[in-house]
């Protein structure tokens, strides 16, 4: 592992970018500057180490397929924002937390355990025997934000949350 430390400038640049994107899409970064920059440094370290922005507060396997659900923003962000007012790391916070109307609590891990994930992958790859649906087009769902579209293939980038095509799953 060769991890050169991300520079302050890189951290600030990514912070600015994430902040802009978040606000455009109705999300908010944690206003605690030191805290947020420290997480963003973690994202940059993980990018150097694994090649993608793996969640700084979770142990990545280094296998992209395995880590897909925890590439930031993870598949669990929206549910945690709704339930706890913050994502697991608290990089993203809800409007209430931002406005100081709600305290930040420790967010329990929502990602299924390694065993459960392994079983789910196995079930997915097993042939189910039945046709997906009789709709004229398959429907694809973005696992990050829930966006649905009906076409032969999912879009290269989610038009709502900008997640990559690989974050889409066949919905029906």
């Amino acid at each position: 592992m060769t991890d050169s430390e991300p520079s302050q400038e890189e951290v600030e640049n990514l912070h600015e970018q994430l902040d802009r994107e978040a606000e455009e899409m109705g999300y908010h970064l944690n206003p605690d500057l030191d805290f947020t920059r420290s997480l963003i440094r973690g994202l940059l370290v993980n990018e150097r180490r694994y090649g993608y922005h793996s969640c700084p507060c979770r142990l990545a396997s280094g296998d992209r397929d395995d880590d897909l659900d925890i590439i930031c923003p993870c598949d669990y962000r929206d549910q945690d924002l709704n339930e706890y007012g913050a994502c697991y790391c608290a990089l993203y916070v809800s409007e209430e937390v931002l406005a100081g109307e709600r305290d930040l609590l420790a967010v329990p891990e929502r990602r299924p355990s390694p065993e459960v994930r392994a079983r789910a992958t196995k079930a997915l790859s097993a042939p189910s025997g039945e046709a997906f649906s009789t709709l004229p087009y398959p429907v694809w769902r973005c696992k990050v934000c829930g966006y649905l579209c009906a076409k032969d293939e999912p879009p290269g980038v989610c038009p709502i949350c900008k997640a990559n095509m690989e974050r889409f799953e066949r919905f029906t």
Partner: protein
Amino acid sequence: MGFERVGGEDRGEITLYALSTCVWCHKTKKLLQDLGAEFRYVYVDLLEGADRDKTLEEVKRHNPNITFPTTVIDGEKSIIGFKEREMKEALGL
């Protein structure tokens, strides 16, 4: 095996399993330092090969979901996540 020791008062055998990139892990480490307790910690994301597997087995025994930070006190009590109050209670403070 990758463990670093931080000196302090003896409040039991305290082990912190952490990730080097995780802010909540850093907060937990700082909490233990501020509480003045002696402890050892390891950054599991920096381990490789057999060391990593063995350490993950240890974490799993105390926290089947293998999340970080996991703090183990006297080999039996485990605190999952950054929990200031729980930590103080567990250390008798």
